[in-house]
């Protein structure tokens, strides 16, 4: 657990509370695997030239 600030806004009453709370560390998700469309276009052109598709 680490300490962190939590801001709570009650939309009914307008009350705003800022407090120090225990924070459970959360996962840092990886960025997405990526592909360059330009490479895909070249790959498709090559595959067509080879008669594969």
């Amino acid at each position, binding site marked *: 657990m680490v300490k*962190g600030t*939590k*801001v709570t806004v*009650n*939309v009914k009453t307008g009350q705003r509370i800022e407090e120090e709370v225990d924070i459970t560390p*959360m*996962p*840092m*998700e990886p960025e997405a695997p990526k592909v*360059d469309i330009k490479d895909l276009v070249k790959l498709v052109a090559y595959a067509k030239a080879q008669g594969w598709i």
Partner: protein
Amino acid sequence: MGMAMPGTWIPDGSVTPAKLAEGTMRMVANEVLTGAATTVSFTGLSIDTSKHYILVYDLKTGAAGANIFIFVNADTTVTNYYSQLIDCDAAVLGGNRYNSPMVAWVNANGRESGFAHIFLGVDDYFRCIAQNQRYTGASVRVTQYATCKTGTTADITQIDITSSAANHLVAGSRFTLYEVDY
């Protein structure tokens, strides 16, 4: 100048409760952080009453990047949610699915603007679709996250936006919540 509403015109520009009964969008909270925070929590909600929420945000992070998560009804167990990412950076496309409720990913000292539509589906599943603009100028990039919960929910009474590490949302970050009633 009149105002068009579904099935009704307000040609006289006079807005009355009866005319508003056709549907309204109303700002219910506008939080601008004055210091670093981990979580911004909106309570006192009822999506059964309001039907739909729209959260508009401008995110600023500190010295480290952070995932930004959305939780509902104080259920902060990340594995109770899934999210799907589409990421477009020039001609480079990416995608991923996470066992967590992502709405954004902000890099170190990052700035990111976006909005999230928050629903409770007719099947009582929490759903959220968030679209973000990351970076500016020649680096401009778009990300979109679809998020849902693994179980059903009777109502949505609380929405929390939380960074993946303590106090990674810094002063100046803005969160504006609208309720859409119809």
